[in-house]
């Protein structure tokens, strides 16, 4: 049992930091404030991801056969920590490399791989995740968007909501159903967002410009070759995708970075001698470090290829606690940051308030952990 880094891992982290110091523009705080899905950050992600690709870092954790470099799970995670803590200059493209790619590797056919991987690898495409619907949030399997089978493919009608990055997305990982018959009737379609009949509407929200959208589908034709996996296989694929998504974002790293900044600021302002402030900062710090180690435990499982258990659900709870602890501390003791003084604090606030909802509500994580980690009996008629 050990809790440190190898010299190679330290070197890797330093390399990512150096790259960030070099590539992030001076007005990065202003770009980052609007979130990964904003126009400004998406535009920057296209430059930054190309640079990452040039450095061999964009998809380096992918296997060699898919253009990657077989980088270790830990190295990928170290890079994720540094990039997310810096405000995620990959913009929406973190999704491509974190979970879209791995899902395609496992379930796409050769033609699909040949089509999508080179685009992801060069850092030029934006994928969005078309899962949630107005009446299907936590209860994802109740989704209603229809995919009617026609000659040569499917015709899609329906609506998605909360779709991050849809405004600028080139592709959508879309869930729809061919009939009303439960999970088995769900299909996954790899949709070209420029298809006729797709309409995207931004939703004004507390969490920043360009993040969440409604997407409407009116008689959208999707060719059969864009079906991912077999019909009937979708739920298995979705489960795999969500496993990769749920702790894919090292949120605690951004929280810790923001807390360090807050401490420095409070010191500069002569306020850090106040024991109440130091007490509360110390508690928030403990929450960040707790989340870090809970997540590391999950990464360790991945790195050692141990079977995934419900530890990821426990870790998600820890992550939410850490985001909230740091955000609550700053909102209480540094409200001036939210009054326009600190763009990064605003960015953190907007990520933190969504932490317990995006990627599945925190209560769903608790439900799953109760069943799978504590082995508690199910509640009669409980949905999850």
């Amino acid at each position, binding site marked *: *049992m*050990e*809790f*440190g*880094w*190898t*010299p190679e*891992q330290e070197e890797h982290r330093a390399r990512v930091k150096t790259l960030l110091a070099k590539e992030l523009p001076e007005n990065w705080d202003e770009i980052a404030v609007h979130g990964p899905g904003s126009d400004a950050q998406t535009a920057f992600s296209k430059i930054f991801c190309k640079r990452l690709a040039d450095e061999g870092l964009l998809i380096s954790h992918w296997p060699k056969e898919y253009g990657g470099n077989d980088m270790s799970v*830990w190295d990928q995670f170290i890079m994720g920590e540094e990039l997310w803590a810096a405000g995620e200059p990959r913009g929406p493209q973190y999704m491509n490399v974190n979970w879209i790619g791995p899902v395609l590797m496992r379930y796409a056919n050769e033609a699909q791989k040949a089509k999508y991987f080179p685009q992801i690898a060069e850092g030029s495409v934006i994928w969005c995740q078309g899962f949630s619907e107005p009446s299907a949030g936590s209860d994802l399997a109740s989704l209603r968007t229809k995919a009617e089978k026609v000659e040569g493919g499917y015709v899609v009608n329906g609506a998605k909501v909360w779709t991050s990055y849809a405004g600028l997305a080139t592709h959508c990982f879309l869930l729809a159903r061919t009939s009303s018959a439960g999970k088995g009737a769900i299909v996954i379609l790899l949709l070209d967002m420029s298809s006729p009949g797709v309409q995207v509407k931004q939703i004004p929200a507390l969490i920043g410009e360009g993040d969440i959208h409604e997407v409407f589908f009116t008689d959208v034709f999707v060719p059969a070759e864009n079906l991912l996996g077999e019909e009937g296989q979708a739920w298995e694929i979705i489960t795999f995708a969500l496993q990769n998504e749920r702790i894919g974002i090292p949120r605690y790293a951004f929280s810790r970075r923001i807390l*360090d900044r807050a*401490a*420095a600021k409070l*010191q500069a302002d*002569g306020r*850090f*001698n106040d*024991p109440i402030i*130091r*007490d*509360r*900062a*110390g*508690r928030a*710090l*403990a*929450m960040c*470090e*707790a*989340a870090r*180690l*809970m997540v*590391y*435990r999950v*990464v*360790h499982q991945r790195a*050692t290829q141990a079977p995934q258990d419900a530890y990821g*659900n*426990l870790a998600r*709870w*820890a992550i939410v606690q850490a985001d909230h602890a740091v955000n609550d501390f700053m909102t209480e003791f540094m409200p001036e940051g939210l009054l326009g003084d600190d763009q990064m604090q605003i960015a953190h606030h907007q990520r933190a308030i969504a932490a317990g909802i995006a990627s599945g509500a925190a*209560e769903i994580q*608790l*439900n799953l*952990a*109760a069943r799978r*980690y*504590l*082995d*508690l*009996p*199910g*509640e*009669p008629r*409980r949905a999850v």
Partner: protein
Amino acid sequence: MSHAVQFDLSEDQSAILGGLEQLIGTLNIEAPKDPVVSAYSQPLDDELTTGGFFEITQSEGFGLLDGALIVEALAKLPVSVEAAASILIAPSFLEDAGRRPVALVSGSAAAPARFLPMAKTLLVDKGDDVLRIDIPEGAVEDVETLFAYPYGRLKNPGALPAVSLGAGRVAELRRRWRMAIAVEAAGLMQSALDTVLEHVKTRQQFGRPIGSFQAVQHRLVMAAEQGQATRWLALRAAWSDSEADAAIAATYAQDATPKFCNDLHQFCGAMGLTLEFPLHHWTYRLRALLGEMGGSSGSALAAADAVWAGKVP
């Protein structure tokens, strides 16, 4: 020391913990049948001494992390034994590490302390000095308490000679003490949770196990998460022996303790308030640890100072 994140036990660690489990197995340790608030196991103490477990950190190839794993495992038992201070603190503070059990107090040597009734050494954190006091036979009176450790107080603290170890040792004592609190809390939390899980899976109300109610499940998962996070933070603190890691681990454990204990008792109903039900052995040790080293605020201040120190004007 090689560096990598590695959550699995090493072969040596597995072997040591296996040996400990075997030793505990031979003693047939069960929760006390009599309604007692605390039970010290002298037979276990004797066996651990014979087995050399208190000297683990001094053995070739072993260190604090291995000691911490032993402390954690012992904390899971319904009976108590003084191990944390003996293993994690005594080796660098006692001339003769055999003069254990070791009791710890902050401020005044007259304050009640855990394990003082059987202690041979008392270490006092005076803030600007660490005092070491040898405890002769008959110098201690028992203190009655619900805290599930034996507590005692010196009858005449002024009469006992104290060795001053100097201001330079205060930080080290506090670091190790916080580490000890967190490591012990991790073991206590695990057994408390296991006890309550068993209860909520078997106790039926409204025609179903109370553990099937979502209101109960969610808070139990939160408790499980707190137990796990305490564990990793505590073991990291033992691995690094750093001031920041020890203070962070203690902050987390002490911050979590009130809700953790309140919830776990809540789910056991009136049964959880009895001495017959073993839960109190762990929750009242947790509650005892909550009040040490300045409590969660004391640890949080220490964490803030350790991490952001030097920068404070």
